[in-house]
């Protein structure tokens, strides 16, 4: 029986019995239990997405040198992004099959991307702690934002699509 079924069962029980105090207590427990389940699922999903991303980056590092014969940096970058997108899709498919909601997968990808980007932005000035580097930072940050946001959206959409497909092919409990 899935956690959702357990919670639904308790909610129904609270609705059926003629004991206001018990009903109130049971409903409160369900609400807390759902929040806890959602939090645990979210953390697990973020963790899984991170593992998938690390795997895709690892694969990209292995595969790209094999193809790197007379191709431009831009092509290599596109191949790398393609591999990451493929892994994100397959990861989403797996998570969807495991019963994780597609919107939670999408949210996890977005939150993780934002977290990494903010961490990068916070840490970068320290790494570049030499005089005059502020100008370099300002010059390079602005044009990077647009493709990055576009990439987040593509990544999120790909993960969402994978999870939706996985959810459809999920075996019933």
């Amino acid at each position, binding site marked *: *029986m899935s956690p959702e079924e*357990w919670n639904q*069962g*308790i909610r*129904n*029980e*609270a*609705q*059926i*019995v003629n*004991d206001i105090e*018990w009903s109130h*207590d*049971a409903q*409160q*427990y369900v609400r*807390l*239990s759902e929040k806890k389940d959602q939090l645990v699922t979210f953390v697990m999903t973020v963790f899984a997405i991170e593992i998938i991303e690390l795997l895709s980056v690892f694969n990209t590092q292995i595969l790209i040198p094999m193809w790197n014969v007379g191709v431009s940096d831009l092509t290599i970058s596109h191949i790398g992004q393609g591999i990451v997108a493929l892994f994100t899709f397959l990861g989403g498919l797996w998570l969807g099959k495991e019963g994780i909601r597609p919107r939670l997968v999408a949210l996890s990808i977005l939150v993780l991307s934002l977290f990494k980007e903010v961490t990068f932005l916070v840490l970068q000035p320290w790494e570049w702690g030499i005089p005059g580097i502020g100008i370099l930072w300002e010059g390079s940050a602005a044009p990077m934002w647009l493709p990055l946001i576009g990439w987040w959206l593509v990544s999120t959409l790909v993960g969402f699509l994978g999870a939706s497909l996985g959810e459809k092919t999920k075996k019933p409990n």
Partner: protein
Amino acid sequence: VLLTLSERHPAWTHGYDLSKVTGLKSGTLYPILRRLNEQELLEARWEESEHVGRPPRHSYQLSNKGLQLIHVLNASPALSLKGILI
């Protein structure tokens, strides 16, 4: 919870009844039931209501594995005590 379920076996029991008999609140009882179910000691099923318009209920019964555990606990008071303490 195990003892109450074993006393009632093979009848199916509702969560509310179990809560009242054991004196456990839902926040304590249901995690126990979920854990017993995960360990395959307890069977849980949906039960359609006899009254129209009322939602289906969950009912619970000890599984064969759960009954075996009860027999083991009954046969060995030391294990029983350990189970209670844990």
